[in-house]
């Protein structure tokens, strides 16, 4: 299935969980915030949350800012 991750189209296994996607991308779950189609998904819910084709995922971290 195809999903959008940080604005980029990606081919991912059908029914993949958010936690699995994060692990595959090398994102440490405790250090990133995740938004799925405009909803914030807390770390505790990512292992159970399955992606569907067309989903938009945003993965965010902290960077320098004032």
């Amino acid at each position, binding site marked *: 299935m195809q999903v959008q991750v940080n604005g980029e189209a990606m081919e991912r296994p059908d029914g993949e969980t958010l936690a699995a996607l994060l692990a595959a*991308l090398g994102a440490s779950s405790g250090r990133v915030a995740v938004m799925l189609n405009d909803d*914030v998904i807390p770390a505790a819910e990512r292992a159970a949350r399955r992606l569907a084709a067309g989903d938009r995922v945003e993965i*965010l*971290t*902290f*960077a320098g800012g004032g």
Partner: protein
Amino acid sequence: MNSDVLQLGNLAFNSRLLLGTGKYSDTATMLRSIEASGAQIVTVALRRFNRERPSDDLFGPLSQLKGVTLMPNTSGARDAAEAVRAARLAREISGSPLIKVEIHPNPQHLLPDPIETLEAARVLAAEGFLVMPYMPADPVLAKRLEDVGVASVMPLGAPIGSGQGLGTSEMLRIIIENSRVPVIVDAGLRAPSEAAAAMEMGCAAVLINSAVAAAEQPAAMAAAFAQAVQAGRAAYLAGLMPRRATASATSPLTSFLKPET
């Protein structure tokens, strides 16, 4: 902890210097500057995770610092809805209720949108955030923000990163006089003397980023700002003498040096 604390909601801080983490040449310089500043509140921004450069992630190094609370900002948000979403996301990582609401639709001047800022503050305060709004130095807006439950107001001294100093000082005086929440000058300062002036005026704290990060020696400048903020606060608490239009002698004006006539 001493008795003169900066109280933000249920959180109390000894340091009245808040430091930003933007614009540093490298992470080590940023960390040294935070330590030299003695800041207990440090701002960060949200950015998309970069698979190619995971070292860009500041949460790891910042979480090693003892006694530092992270205050994410909502920079990049152009309206209240985006700022609210950014705040909720940021809290997932920071684990802190502190949020700097920053909504500036125009990248040219980065001036805060008062209407969207008020709306975002209202929503986030109701969700239990300690809302720290970056705002124009507008005394009426400051009261409106107070009414919706912000933890502080953060009027600008001058546009972000401009180094123009305390251009809004007369408005800041009115805000301070009327505010029931801490007033923190955020943005525009360049020199430690300006931070001291803000504190002497009665500001509760100052937030500095560019003035430290863009200094020739950031950590040394951070230490200079720390001293200036402490001196300014001490002067405020000591109470400045009233200004007078005329001279008032400090030495006795005796006439013994005059030749006898």
